[in-house]
């Protein structure tokens, strides 16, 4: 990135003056940390003792045989503590906050994964913690809210705008400009004002660094393609980062196709034609917005992909043609999820399942002696309410109804 936080035409730090000083400091702490090998070592130690890094790379033999094409490997970010790649980012920022000497952290969350991860980090580091979450997401991700609160965080349901992720981000910024001296904003994905996109990608880069070594061990050489779902872009940047240095590895980002690109009810920014360049939430990227520049409502079965913007770094890679972008519909996602559970005994998060969809579409046409990697950004347990709904599971409903009745007494 250039010194002012741009990646080609994208990025920057479009922030109110009150945050100027904090970003200057944050940028400096980040740069120092990045230049200090001891910092990365401390990060590795933390992630290998508190979470279980390196996370495994699983050879999905049954799925590979089922599709009769390339060997499918799954990078298991679901095995992280708290169940998703989000842990990598929050723990890294936690170490930075310790260095900055701040005692309070705030975070936005969509699916609730980043919220749980941030609350977990705060508990581990002894920080006060407030999580901003759109009211819509609070309602659909209640279990995550429960755990955040149990870990000592205050969860604020944001009732403005579309009451989803983008509004949670606005509210977190409002908190930050007010408590800027004591508080660090633990941004959850590779978006937002510089240095967040680069910094979050740096912490997530551990995924790709592990994956390339693992695929060489198991497969003897590079994969031909790497698939990742794209919400804000952090898990994608995490696994793509290292492979961007290689030749002949095609990188595929999969966005939320929702009810189909044509329906307009989706969150596809880099594939399809509904998005346009814009500046919001502190950075410049491709946004789903109308002609006036007002942000549109997005839709996805996966709360974590349900967002108007995307990492400026990915917009740059998209513009340069270095990453190919596709989308998966809600229905395709449920199918891929079902198949993966039955064939491999693995439960991808709804977000992650988007990457599986595209890999499944392409695997059959690739030779059986080649390998592809799917980044499984998280586990699906957290989504039981959504998944049970999507599968319309009668005994689950009956169970919830009975519980509800007991509670009503």
């Amino acid at each position, binding site marked *: 990135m250039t010194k*002012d936080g741009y990646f080609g035409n994208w990025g*920057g*730090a*479009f*922030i*109110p*003056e*009150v*945050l*100027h*000083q*904090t970003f200057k400091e944050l940028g400096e702490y980040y740069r120092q940390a990045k230049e200090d090998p001891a910092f990365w070592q401390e990060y590795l130690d933390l992630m290998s003792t508190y979470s279980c890094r390196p996370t495994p790379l699983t050879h999905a033999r049954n799925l590979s045989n089922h599709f009769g094409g390339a060997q499918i490997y799954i990078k298991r970010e679901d095995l992280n503590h708290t169940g998703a790649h989000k842990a990598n980012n929050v723990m890294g920022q936690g170490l930075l906050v310790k260095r900055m000497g701040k005692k309070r952290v705030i975070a936005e969350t969509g699916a609730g994964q980043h919220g749980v991860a941030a609350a977990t980090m705060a508990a581990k580091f002894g920080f006060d913690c407030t999580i901003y979450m759109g009211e819509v997401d609070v309602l659909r991700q209640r279990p995550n809210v429960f755990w955040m609160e149990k870990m000592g965080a205050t969860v604020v349901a944001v009732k*403005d*705008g579309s009451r989803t992720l*983008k509004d949670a981000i*606005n509210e977190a*910024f*409002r908190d930050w*400009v*007010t*408590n*800027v*001296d004591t508080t660090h904003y633990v941004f959850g994905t590779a978006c937002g004002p510089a240095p967040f996109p680069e910094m979050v990608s740096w912490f997530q880069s551990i995924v790709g660094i592990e994956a390339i070594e693992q695929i060489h061990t198991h497969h003897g050489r590079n994969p031909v393609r790497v698939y990742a779902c794209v919400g804000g872009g952090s898990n994608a940047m995490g696994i793509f980062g290292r492979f961007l240095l290689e030749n002949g590895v095609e990188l595929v980002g999969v966005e939320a196709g929702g009810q189909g690109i044509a329906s307009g009810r989706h969150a596809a920014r880099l594939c399809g034609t509904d998005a*346009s*360049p*814009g*500046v*919001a*939430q*502190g950075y410049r990227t491709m*946004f789903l*917005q109308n*002609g*006036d*520049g*007002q*942000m549109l409502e997005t839709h996805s079965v996966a709360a974590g992909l349900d967002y108007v913007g995307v990492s400026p770094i990915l917009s740059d890679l998209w513009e340069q043609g270095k990453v190919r972008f596709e989308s998966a519909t809600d229905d395709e996602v449920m199918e891929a999820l079902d198949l993966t559970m039955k064939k491999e005994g693995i439960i991808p998060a709804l977000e992650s399942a988007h990457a599986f969809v595209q890999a499944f579409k392409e695997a059959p046409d690739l030779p059986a002696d080649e390998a592809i990697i799917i980044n499984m950004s998280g586990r699906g347990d957290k989504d039981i309410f959504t998944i049970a709904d999507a599968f319309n599971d009668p005994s689950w409903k009956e169970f919830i109804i009975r519980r509800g009745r007991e509670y009503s007494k």
Partner: protein
Amino acid sequence: MQLEDYLKDRRKHQNILLMTHIVLGYPSFDANREVVRQMVENGVDCIEMQIPFSEPMADGPVIMKANLDSLAGGTRVAECLDFGAEMARTHDIAFLYMTYYNIVFKYGEEQLIERCAADNIQGLIIPDLPPDHSELFFSQAHAKGIAPILIYSPTSSDQRMKEVDEAGSGFIYCVARRGVTGNKSELNVDFDTYLQRCRRATEKMLAVGFGIQNHDDIAALTGKADIAVIGSETIRLVDAEGPAAVGGFIAGLRS
């Protein structure tokens, strides 16, 4: 430099100027029209008209709600600009636009600035556009004599204030405290030292905004700042008592 000259001139006859704020299309353009009329008739020197944006990151509950309700009512940028032009034609005080950068960006920076020039809009306040983030915007604004009004905050270093001063024009918008619009600000000793830092950093007039709500606040600012900015308070008033209440409120501020 028309805005600067205009304000300097008004300042000769007033020991503090008044700038007020409205959100376009909230509760309606008709209400805006009435509110502006009352503001002008009661001596307001300058009005910032906010073009609503779906992500009003720097605004507090009152103005945020006004933004979102206005958009929910269907307000389009084009209507806002037509309304702004009408106001500038109708009343001979200074009118500014306040909005977020994406609105400017999508409309086209050159196009918007030309439109302002054509419509006699004298300045632009874009809270999420730092001075070094769009050469085009600043060069065009200066070229067309539209003041890009920049902001000081208590967190700005002396050094930073100098940089900001160089890039902006018209006047400096000093936010009275950390945080978003709407909440009351303590105009205490810390505030005074902050204002003194602002004075040292720039020759421009100082406007003070964020939480300025009544006659006492204005009195407290008089002699220290050049312009007092009334933001959320008039919106609260219109919500509570309707446009008719604005005149009296404004009249009472400096009396």
